[in-house]
């Protein structure tokens, strides 16, 4: 069953055709990675899915419902959640308060405190809970934001470069976490440059190039595709 369906999405910035008739179907329960060179339109596609940008034409269907006209917060209510490329934590607030803000829409009082504690343990940030989020290391900020995103218990989790700035070990841990969430039924769409991460988690890969879907398949098929290597993997392996 398709959880997310993009139909002929077009977006122009002035004369620049950022996404060009993008069709993409995301099956419920899969981990899907979106790759492509810089400027391929990956982050723009995320912003279209989230409602921060509006497409010039085309439709976005989520769980069978056309959400193209919905405001971003309403899409979150439908079961979407996102971790941004640049860590989007509340820098001036404590780690604990960051999580509280994420969780308080769905949890109250004692249950809320218990859920925050559970997440702090899960993210390995217990010792830092009273620290100002702006003082965390880059990797910790990434984890905190991932924690905020998954705390909404979304049906579809969008991850924009979740492992940027992480060590290989942290990257692997993030991959394991994504797989655990997926095992619990969460569908994941991730933009990622780190091929080790893609190889670890992706069940299907879509290559975006110049705003168009360039290739789609398993990671092995993508790696074997010489056209893809020419535009992307060649650079990545260089």
């Amino acid at each position, binding site marked *: 069953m398709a959880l997310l369906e993009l139909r002929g999405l077009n977006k122009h910035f002035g004369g620049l055709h950022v996404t060009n008739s993008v069709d993409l179907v995301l099956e419920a329960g899969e981990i899907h990675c979106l790759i492509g060179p810089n400027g391929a339109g990956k982050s723009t596609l995320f912003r279209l899915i989230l409602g921060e940008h509006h497409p010039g034409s085309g439709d976005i269907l989520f769980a069978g419902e056309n959400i193209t006209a919905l405001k971003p917060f309403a899409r979150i209510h439908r079961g979407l959640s996102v971790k941004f490329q640049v860590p989007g934590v509340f*820098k001036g607030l404590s780690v604990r308060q960051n999580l509280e*803000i994420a969780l308080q829409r769905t949890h109250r009082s004692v249950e809320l405190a218990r859920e925050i504690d559970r997440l702090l343990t899960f993210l390995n940030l217990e010792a830092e809970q009273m620290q100002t989020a702006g003082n965390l290391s880059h990797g910790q900020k990434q984890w905190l934001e991932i924690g905020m995103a998954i705390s909404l218990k979304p049906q579809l989790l969008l991850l924009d470069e979740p492992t940027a700035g992480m060590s290989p070990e942290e990257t692997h841990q993030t991959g394991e976490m994504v797989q655990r969430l997926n095992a619990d039924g969460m569908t994941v769409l991730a933009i990622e440059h780190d091929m080790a991460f893609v190889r670890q988690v992706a069940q299907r890969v879509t290559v975006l190039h110049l705003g168009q879907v360039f290739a789609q398949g398993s990671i092995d098929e993508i790696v074997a595709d010489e056209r893809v290597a020419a535009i992307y993997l060649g650079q990545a392996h260089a």
Partner: protein
Amino acid sequence: MNGLPGFLRLLEGPQTVGRGPAFWIVFAIVFAMACAYPLFSDGYTVGNTVYFFVWVFIALSLCLIWGYGGSLSFGQTAFFGIAGYSYGILTLNFGSAYGFTLVALVLAIAIAALFALLLGYFMFFGRIAGVFLGIVTLAVTLMLERFMAQTAGPEWRIGVARLNGFNGMSAMPPLTIPWPGGDIVLFADIGLYYAVLGLLLLVYLGLRILMNSAFGNVIVAIRENPERAEMLGYDVRKYQLITFVIGAALAGISGVLYTVWGQYITPSSMGMTAAALPLIWVAVGGRSDLTSTLIGTLVVLAAFQALTIYGSQYALVFMGVLLVLTVLIAPNGLVLGVMNLISRLATRRSKGDV
């Protein structure tokens, strides 16, 4: 969560400085002193203190919208003026019998809040933010001042109330509480002092509860990162609009109280200087905390008045210098800086004991 400890917990949280028994004991002592103060003073001085208290509400409104919400509003004096004029127009037309002045107080604040609802709807749902919000609100304030200043002619009247252009309106009745055996009239001395002090206590505690609630969390989240807040499922525009309307109502309280205190209101209460001064009080005190704003406003106002005796132009220059110094030395506010220092020292000492 019952009883006094439960109530105190509602008042404490990461958004407000001051927690624990020590803080609330000091708070109770200060409040008791404020209650006893008129017994040891004369009517004129008490009336002057009321004047200081009157301004605290508009300072708190700016603390809420700017300090917590992150939206710099120059428009607080517009709501101040709207409420003040509304009170004048209502009471000059309908008098003070049957407790109508109290109804007029509520209505005037509601009119200011309604105006903020309209203005705020177009601003926040039009996604106006940052410096543009400041420009729009300042323009509205100055436009209102210009408009009211040209209402000198006899054709500018609402009912029997003349707007009187630059001279402003005057002679509206003071707040009057209906009472068996004779109405209680709150003139600008002891009577009004206790009424305003009580209102100030209610507003201060109410705002502490609001800011430490889930709602307050969302407000500071929007200040820190509106995009992230929206992507956690919060309708940012709605929260900003509600905060703006609450702020306008608080500024409206100041406007009505100022009008009943002096029994006059003029367009200059919405002018450039009037719009800038609250920003200075709040910035100097510490805009991101209610208590700092409250203390800072009272201290700066008292200093300003003392200086005005020697020459009002110098006092204004001094305010400018004070703002520059604050921005350079303690950008989070002088009072807030001192309070944070005290709490750090207190924590260090208690840790040293262990």
